[in-house]
C-alpha cells in the first residue's frame, strides 16, 4: 500500500470540462483563418438549401399565381356579363348581395366595379333598411338567390356556364334589374380538377423529397471533407489534453454555425431565384400582387431551421469519428 502514498504517484484526476466560449472562440478563429475552406463548405450548404427553397417557394408562387389568374378571369367574366345586362355602369349605383363567394373574390369584383366607374355600391341588407326612391342600375346577386321571377342567361366567354338570372324587379327599387352571378362547376369538372390536384401534390412531394436528400448529401459531404482535412489537428489537440467531447463540440458548433449562415443565405437565393423566374414568365405585377407572404416566410424559416438541423445531423458521424480517433492514427494522416 505504501506505493500509493509515494510522492511520485499522483492520482489521476478528471480532465477539466472547458466552458462553451472556449470552443466557440476556437471555432470562430478556425473559420476566419480557413476562410477559403469555410467558404467552400458554406457554398455546399447554400447550394443545397437554395435548391430546396427554390422548389418549395416555386410551388407556393405557382399556386398563388394560378389562383390569381383564375380570379382575374372570373372577375372579368362577371363584369362582362353584368355589363351585357346593364350597359355601361359609369356614374350609376349598384346594390350587391353575396352569400357564398369568398370575400377575396367579392373584394376584387367590387374593385373592378369601381374601375368601371360605379358611383355607389350598397349591400342588399343596407338597401332594405334604407327607405329611399333611387335608381339602381342592377342588384347584383353573387351566389344564393333573391326571391321572385327570373330568366336564365349563359355566358359564352367562360368554359363553365355562368348562370345569371335577370328580372325587371317590381318588388325592388325602381328600374333596377337583378343580375345573379354564380359559377357552377359540373361534377366532371370537379373530378378532373381533383385528379389534377392529386397528381400535382404527388409530384411536389416527390420533388421536395429529392431536394431534401440532395441538401443533406451536399451538406454532409462538405462537412465530412472539412473534418477529414483536420485529422492531424484533432490528433494534436488530443495530445495536448483535449477531451473527445470537446472535439465533438467544436465540430457541432462549427456545423451549426455554417449551417445557419449557409441556409439563411441559401433560402434567400432560392427565393430570389423562383421570384425571378416567375416574374420573367408572368410579369412581376401578377407575381407580387398575389405573393403568399405568410407561406413564403414560413418556408424561409423551415428551410433555414431545416438547413441547420441537416448540418448538425450531417456532423454527427464525422464529429463522432473524429472524437474517437486514436491520437496516433490521427497524427499519421497526411492530407
Amino acid at each position, binding site marked *: 500500500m505504501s506505493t500509493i502514498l509515494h510522492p511520485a*504517484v499522483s*492520482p489521476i*484526476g478528471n480532465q477539466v470540462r*472547458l466552458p462553451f466560449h472556449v470552443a466557440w472562440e476556437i471555432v470562430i478563429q478556425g473559420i476566419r483563418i480557413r476562410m477559403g475552406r469555410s467558404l467552400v463548405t458554406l457554398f455546399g450548404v447554400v447550394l443545397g438549401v437554395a435548391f430546396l427553397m427554390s422548389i418549395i417557394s416555386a410551388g407556393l408562387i405557382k399556386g398563388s399565381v394560378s389562383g390569381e389568374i383564375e380570379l382575374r378571369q372570373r372577375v372579368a367574366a362577371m363584369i362582362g356579363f353584368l355589363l351585357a345586362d346593364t350597359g355601361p355602369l359609369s356614374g350609376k349605383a349598384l346594390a350587391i348581395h353575396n352569400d357564398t363567394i369568398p370575400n377575396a373574390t367579392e373584394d376584387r369584383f367590387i374593385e373592378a366595379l369601381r374601375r368601371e366607374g360605379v358611383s355607389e355600391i350598397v349591400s342588399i341588407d343596407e338597401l332594405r333598411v334604407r327607405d329611399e326612391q333611387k335608381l339602381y342600375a342592377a342588384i347584383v346577386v353573387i351566389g344564393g338567390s333573391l326571391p321572385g321571377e327570373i330568366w336564365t342567361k349563359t355566358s359564352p366567354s367562360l368554359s363553365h356556364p355562368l348562370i345569371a338570372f335577370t328580372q325587371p324587379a317590381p318588388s325592388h327599387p325602381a328600374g333596377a334589374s337583378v343580375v345573379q352571378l354564380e359559377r357552377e362547376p359540373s361534377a366532371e369538372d370537379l373530378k378532373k380538377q381533383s385528379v389534377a390536384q392529386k397528381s400535382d401534390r404527388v409530384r411536389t412531394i416527390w420533388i421536395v423529397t429529392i431536394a431534401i436528400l440532395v441538401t443533406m448529401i451536399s451538406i454532409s459531404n462538405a462537412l465530412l471533407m472539412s473534418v477529414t482535412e483536420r485529422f492531424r*489537428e484533432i*490528433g494534436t489537440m488530443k495530445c*495536448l*489534453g483535449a477531451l473527445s467531447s470537446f472535439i465533438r463540440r467544436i465540430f457541432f458548433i462549427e456545423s451549426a454555425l455554417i449551417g445557419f449562415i449557409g441556409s439563411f443565405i441559401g433560402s434567400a437565393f432560392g427565393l430570389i431565384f423562383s421570384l425571378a423566374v416567375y416574374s420573367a414568365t408572368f410579369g412581376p405585377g401578377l407575381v407580387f400582387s398575389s405573393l403568399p407572404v405568410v407561406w413564403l416566410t414560413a418556408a424561409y424559416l423551415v428551410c433555414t431551421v431545416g438547413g441547420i438541423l441537416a448540418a448538425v445531423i450531417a456532423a454527427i458521424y464525422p464529429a463522432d469519428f473524429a472524437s474517437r480517433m486514436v*491520437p496516433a492514427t490521427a497524427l499519421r494522416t497526411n492530407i
Partner: protein
Amino acid sequence: MEVTPKKLRALLAGSECESSGCITRAVGVKKVYRTGEQETHALRGATLQIHRGEYLSIMGPSGSGKSTLFNMIGALSKPSEGKVYIDQVDVAQLDFDELAWFRCRKIGYIFQSYNLVATMTCLENVTLPMSFAGVDAEEAHERGVELLQLVGLGGRFLHKPSELSGGQQQRVAIARALANRPEIILADEPTANLDQKTGEEMISLLTKLRNELGVTVISATHDLKMLKCSDRIFWIRDGVIERVARPSEIDFSSGEFH
C-alpha cells in the same frame, strides 16, 4: 481527490518498478498493424525502463518501430500485447477522460513535423494545453509569454506558425510541450526537418531543459548529435530493442556500435 477502485488498481499496477527512479516502463510490448490481409509487426516485444530525469534516445533504421514505440510510451495508442507504465500507472487501465488528463499534464510531445495548430498564433498554441488543464486565461498568457522567451522566441508571440521558419516552429512546439510542467518530454525525430545549426540549437535547448528543470527527455532520432548528448541509447531493429548503450560505446564516425 477521490480514489476509485479502478484508479487504485491503476496506481498499484506499476508498483513492482524497482524504485521511484523509474518513470516509464514497458513490458513485452507488441504492436500489430492490420491493413486488409497484411499484418505488420511493428513491435515484437519491447521491454524497457526509463529513469526519471534521463535523456534517452531511441535509434534505429527507418521502419524499425521507433514512432510506434513513441506512441506506446506516450499513451497515444494502445499496445496489441504487453503493458506500458508511465509514472507507475498502467496506461491500459485509463479511460478516455483520464487519458486526456494524463497526456495533458504528464507528457509534452514534440513531433518531426511540429504539428502546431495552424489557425492559432504561437502564443495561443502554447496556452492551449494550459486551458485544457483549466489554468485561467491570464495566468496561461503570462506563462505562455515566459515559455516563448525561454525558447528564444521573444517578440513573435502573435505570428501564425505558417509565418515562422521550421526551427522557430519547433521552438514553439517545445514551449507548448512544456506548458503544463510535464515530467516527460517525448520527441519523435525533432531535428529531422531542421538544418544542422538549428538542429544543434534544438538539442542544446532540450539538454538545458533536462539539466535545469529535471524533465525526462525521450526522443527517437537518427541524429548523431542528439545521440552524443544522451545518457543512454536504445538501439531498435525490426521491432525489438537489440541493444542499450551509452554514447561512449558508439563510434560516431561510422554511426555503428563498438
